[in-house]
């Protein structure tokens, strides 16, 4: 409790930025399996929705289903406007225009689950231009420096178009996904939790810590036990433990063989949902 209060106080007294410094934000991101830069945004307070940062897009794009979900008014030309566009990490852009359109790129990737996460839209120039953004994939955040800049609206290409005739690809990909038996599941859950720490030493992997009342504790695992096998696979290194746990889910029962005082015991561990 004490450190919680201390932390709260420390934050309260953080040194103010110099007046001359433009506001800088650390924006959480992750790379999708398709190597897109994913950030999350709440639209008029709803969401979060998953967006890709895309200098190849002239504006924010959301599909019709998202527009409907948040009750966005769309004009006759397919444009809407968010009163509040809030990026995860604390950047809020007021009055953000957005294009309401189903993008074949997103439809295709979502149909097959290729990105490993459901993609809801893209963030293009009308928002990106308001910040000086640093992309560095060796860091876990993007840096957004607010610019005093409101970019002009984009101009079209003239002539005929659409999405270069490629709008059909999304539906094709969806159909292929059907043929291949893919019905993507975007739910995320943690792997099973043991509640221990362990180290690899000569002769195997040994338990160095058991947290009271955790799944391992309840199953009778003790500090000093050698983890001989997990899920019937023997452990030589810590990554073997990681590998076995990676295949588990919370609530699952797994077999763990330990060696204590030279004797092997088989324990049945009900994995927890802890982080």
């Amino acid at each position, binding site marked *: 409790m004490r*450190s*919680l209060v201390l*932390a*709260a106080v420390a*934050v309260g007294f953080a040194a103010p930025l110099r007046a001359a410094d433009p506001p800088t934000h650390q924006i*959480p991101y992750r790379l999708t*399996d398709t*190597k*897109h*830069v994913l950030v999350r945004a*709440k639209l008029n307070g709803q969401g979060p929705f998953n967006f*890709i*940062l*895309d*200098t*190849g*897009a*002239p*504006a924010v794009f959301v599909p019709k289903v998202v527009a409907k979900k948040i009750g966005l008014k769309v004009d006759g030309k397919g444009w809407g406007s968010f009163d509040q566009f809030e990026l*995860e*990490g604390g950047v809020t852009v007021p009055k953000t225009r957005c*294009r309401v359109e189903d993008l074949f*790129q*997103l439809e295709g*990737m979502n149909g*097959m*689950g290729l990105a490993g996460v459901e993609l809801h839209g893209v963030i*293009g120039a009308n928002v990106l*231009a308001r910040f*000086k953004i640093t*992309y*560095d*994939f060796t860091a*876990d*955040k993007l840096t957004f420096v607010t610019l005093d800049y409101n*970019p002009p609206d*984009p*101009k*079209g*290409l003239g002539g005929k178009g*659409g*999405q*270069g*005739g*490629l709008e059909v690809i999304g539906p094709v990909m969806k159909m*292929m996904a059907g043929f291949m038996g*893919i*019905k993507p599941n975007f739910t*995320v*859950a*943690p792997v099973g939790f043991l*509640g221990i*720490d362990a180290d690899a030493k000569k002769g195997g992997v040994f338990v160095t810590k058991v*947290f*009271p*009342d955790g799944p391992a504790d309840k199953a009778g695992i003790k500090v000093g036990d050698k983890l001989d096998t997990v899920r019937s696979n023997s452990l030589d290194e810590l990554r073997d*433990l990681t590998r076995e746990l990676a295949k588990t889910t919370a609530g699952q029962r797994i077999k763990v063989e330990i060696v204590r005082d030279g004797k092997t015991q088989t324990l049945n561990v009900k994995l927890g*949902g*802890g*982080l």
Partner: protein
Amino acid sequence: MTTKRILFGLLVAVTATAVAPAQDGGKKEPTAKPVVVGMEMLPSRHFVVRAKINGEGPYRFILDTGAPITLINNRVGKKAGLTKKGGGGLFGGMNSVPVKTLEIGGVIAKDSMAVVMDHPTVKAISDAFERDGGPIDGIIGFPFFAKFAMTVDYQKKELTLTPNGYQPGDYMQDLMKNLMNSDALNKPRTVMVGALWGFEVGKEANDEKDGVTLLKVYAGTPAAKAGLKAGDRLLTLDGRWTDTVGDATIAASLVKPGKPAELKLTRAGKELKATVTPVKGY
């Protein structure tokens, strides 16, 4: 009827799924000085940079953070000695080839992969704007810019590149693996957190409020030491929203053991902040 024609950033992601694996054996550049490169902005709000391919050029390319591959049209591909391999695949004729050097403003990426093809959207943009500065010959995507800390400044129309040693990896191969393993795509994703925090979170199906609830805080863990309690509502972890168990899991998985992270919580209606340093654990 304007901008709908010009969005193309993500398209490559989809069309490229049938392309051969894009190996990217780029090495860390020895110099790590930032280089500032001027960019040109098209009326369509696309940035154009001038790039030399295998020493040829410079040619004009669109810088696209939404493109997981680099795209070079056939004309420039031929001049730079990039030979297309045989066709095949879902969108036949698309294959990635290694580019020995891709240079922008003196910054060189070695051995990055690119796909050589005439892309209809690139051509549409080129046709619309080539009168003002010549043709546009492709897209600079992830295999190039991921090797740098890259700052994009729309106001100054400047790109700042600093080599960062990041290896873009071989995402195409991962994609193909994913596709071959449709079983895994159909199941919920389990995420290895990789550090031990010491709490369990949950949320009822009909709970629409922000955050997740701490169901349990294990004694002796970093969470317990930081004063977290069962019943606390966790709103953010390391700046990431935690509105579902999955979100909290992902946020927790992105912090390495030993690195302090700030958590925003509410307890009995009051907002609290806590710093938790997760430890190694399982």
